[in-house]
């Protein structure tokens, strides 16, 4: 039965090592404290060597729209601060993030480029997936405060923005996962809009409705089954 293990706030600059310690704390303070090496295995389970690729389904809830937007495709973490998101349905789009820049190409149209600072959502997405797929908490330290909850059946990592600039755009990024697998990435914008991105097995399973309610989808992310 999952119970709150410990909220760990990582504020230190010696990033990677502290991240390891933090994950170790999450694990060691909990029900599995008796099993040495779980923290390592949890981390090892999450951390992968780039390039890492996973299918995804993103459901966006926007104030100007009367129903959610659903897109699906492939997410790739190419290592470092480079990632790529290919949308296959319902249209084709390739978004690349790297070297502080976001470039978006829809279909075979022009490539639009913009600095990442102007697209905080893209930055948040990169941050979330770096943490998830790379187990690389280090890069997040400057922009986010990290906290973690849960056990192996369901765990949650919350990224709260630290800088005023990010806070103007973003409330939080929440990552739900089970055991070695991340399942959902929920981004809540400052204007109340939000998006839930299903990854891995959750994405493969797909949606049960063409326009899922936000609450229902959130519950599915938390569901430990």
């Amino acid at each position: 039965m999952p119970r709150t293990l410990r909220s760990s706030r990582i504020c230190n600059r010696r990033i990677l090592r502290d991240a390891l310690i933090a994950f170790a704390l999450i694990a060691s303070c909990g029900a599995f404290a008796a099993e040495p090496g779980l923290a390592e295995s949890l981390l090892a389970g999450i951390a992968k060597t780039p390039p890492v690729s996973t299918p995804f389904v993103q459901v966006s809830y926007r104030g100007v729209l009367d129903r959610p937007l659903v897109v699906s495709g492939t997410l790739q973490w190419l290592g470092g601060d480079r990632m790529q998101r290919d949308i296959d349905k319902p249209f084709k789009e390739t978004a690349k993030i790297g070297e502080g820049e976001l470039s978006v190409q829809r279909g075979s149209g022009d490539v639009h480029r913009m600095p990442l600072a102007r697209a905080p959502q893209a930055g948040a997405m990169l941050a979330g997936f770096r943490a998830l797929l790379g187990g690389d908490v280090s890069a997040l330290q400057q922009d986010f405060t990290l906290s973690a909850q849960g056990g192996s059946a369901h765990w949650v990592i919350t990224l709260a923005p630290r800088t005023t600039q990010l806070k103007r755009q973003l409330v939080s990024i929440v990552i739900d996962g089970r055991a070695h697998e991340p399942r959902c990435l929920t981004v809540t914008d400052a204007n109340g809009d939000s998006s839930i991105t299903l990854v891995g097995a959750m994405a493969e399973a797909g949606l049960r409705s063409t326009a899922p309610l936000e609450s229902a989808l959130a519950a599915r992310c938390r569901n430990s089954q």
Partner: protein
Amino acid sequence: MMRGARVAIWFVWLALIAAVGWGVARHLQISSDLRDFVPPARTADQKLLLDEIGKGPGSRLLLLAISGAPQDRLAALSRGLQDALSHERAFAQVANGGNDLAEIASDLLPYRYLLSSTLDAHRFDAAYLHAQLQQRVEDLSSPAASMLEPWLKRDPTLETLKLAQSWAPARQPKLVDGVWFSDRGEALLVAETRAAGFDPGAQAAAIASLQKHFASLPGAAQAQLVISGPGWFGVEASRTTRAEADRFGAITTIGFVLMLLLAYRSAVPIVVTALPLLSGAVVGFALLALIFGHAHGITVAFGFTLLGVAQEYPLRVFSHRRIGIETSQCVRELWPLLATAIVSVCIAYLAFFASGVAGLQQLAVFTIGGLVVAGVCTRWLLPLIVPPATRDMAATPGLARAWHFLAHLPRPRWVPWLVAVAGVLVVAFAPGKFWQNDLSALTPIPKAELQRDARLRAELGAPDVRYLLVLHAPTSEGVLALSERIAPQMRQLVANHAVDGFELPSGFLPSAATQIARRAKLPDAAQLQAALQQAMEGLPFRAGVFAPFVADVEAARKLPPLTPEQFERSPVGARLASMLVQQGDGWVGLGTLSGVNDSAAFDALTKTTGGAVHLLDLKGSTESLVEAYRHRILIALGIAALLLCIAVTLALRGPRRALHVLGPMTLATLLVLVVLRACGISLSLFHLVSLTLAAGLGLHYALFFERRTGDEREDLRTLHATLVCVASALLVFGVLALSSVPVLRAIGLTVALGVAFHFTLSVLMAPAEHLRGER
């Protein structure tokens, strides 16, 4: 005359100088506008160039880099500095990347449908709107959604964003923490001063306030602020030049005083010899105040240098005094020669008056007036305050031996001719450019700072400073229309890699005709509502969400076209203001270019527009300007040389004696040129001024050595006087030759070399029978 009377006259004289000096100082404005020292523009391009140099946008930009602290501190400092300077009147604009372009464009939001090119190719009908809204749906799931969303309801076709993107510099530094950062991790800002770039006074004030604001920011002490750009260089150049001139001035003054003590064994020459020179200087300034009302700082500095010749007059008097003879008697004997020298040098300096350059004309008035006054003072006032001689300088130990040595040096007659021929060959065939046309070669700014400027310029994407595209039309509207017409050709030039990028005035503000045409295409509220209704079918947008869009389009239908004056008041307006300028009774558009690879490719553009558009090579224009300038000065100098020959010939009553004076002068000038050329130094205006000064000094030496006195002791006094004069000139200019400031070094080296050659040749080419007493 009694000692008391002499002292009293000395005091009265000094008081007069002080009084006139004080009066002049109150009325004479010292200007620092470099354009006083640039020849008048002849061609339209040169005129434009001068305007650009003075007021152009490029010259008013200060590039700022903050380093030496953690990134977040640097970003905070950048924001703090931007905030502080935006309230400062000295600055028109301060950018650090933090100003969101979309925010800037919102100022012109009501006009977006007239400014954006969308309506040239499309109409706001159901089909176009549907395609746009479909894209917006897709945008909403893109990682950039949060950037677009605030605009969506008012501006579903994203005109604001299109405008912001078209106005954004082609290349921007990367943004970290919302502000610009260089690849080396410095926070970057660009500050545009209101003052012209080449107004060092105003630039210095702006820079001082900038530095003060930076220093008062929290945490500024741990970071470094680096400033670059033309304004900074101007201020730095005058600061280092003045600092070095002051330092060397102090050294040479001490050296000069010691030398006078050594030469005359008395303190009297020190307190007395300065008076004629000072009198000349204050009268020179008074003339400037009367004739011009102002004087340029460079005129003052150069003027004092050229006036230095006058220091010789009282020194000669002191060397030639004899025991038991009234000073006035000695002065009377010297006067014909001194007068010849003064008139000849004044003729030479007249050349600067003929140059037609305001600064040089001031220089001519100052030096000629000053020399004449110094000469007159030496002739009529100086004898009143100089005490009778107690020592004959002819008796100076070693002087007779030196004379004997100089008199018996071998003087083969063919040597001067050989030296002259060899010299001409060296001057003509030495490798390297003869003339220095590149003004920037004279800058005292260290290479490292120039390289840093180039790096910051590249990182900030500042446009090419060498080329500009110039568009001529009778009205500003005409310029904008012309600019619109050539835009397609410019895009073709980019496609052909003739140029990497461009920015035209019409890129910011379309012509009124174009704006009216676009406005005519805007649908009325009912049409737009109906089209929207149809367009939204099958899309997930909430009903009525685009009401602000409908209202904005309706408002735009009633707007008069945006005028350049209105646009220039907006936050991005400064860009247009710098690209659209009135010149004479017409208007000029300036297109900025980056990376010009093939300047010849622009010829076709000139041809198709009937010459209304052409490429301006700023470097080429400056060089042609400098060349024309030098040409005038050379002609003036040539005429002056001719007049000098005539004057000397008349004064010495015959060409044979004149040759003994003019021969060494010419050959010495040639030898200075030989040394400069052999060292690979290209000649600039400053070398020409210095050669003229050296020739003026050389004229003195030659005139006095040529003099037939028939008195061995008088010859020794001449040698004494000349040695003192040569030593003082070598001291002053030799020290200057060690300067790190190119202009000071050019002057110092040229004059010091000139003095050495003029003296040597005056001795060697003087009629040997005089020197050896074979009269």
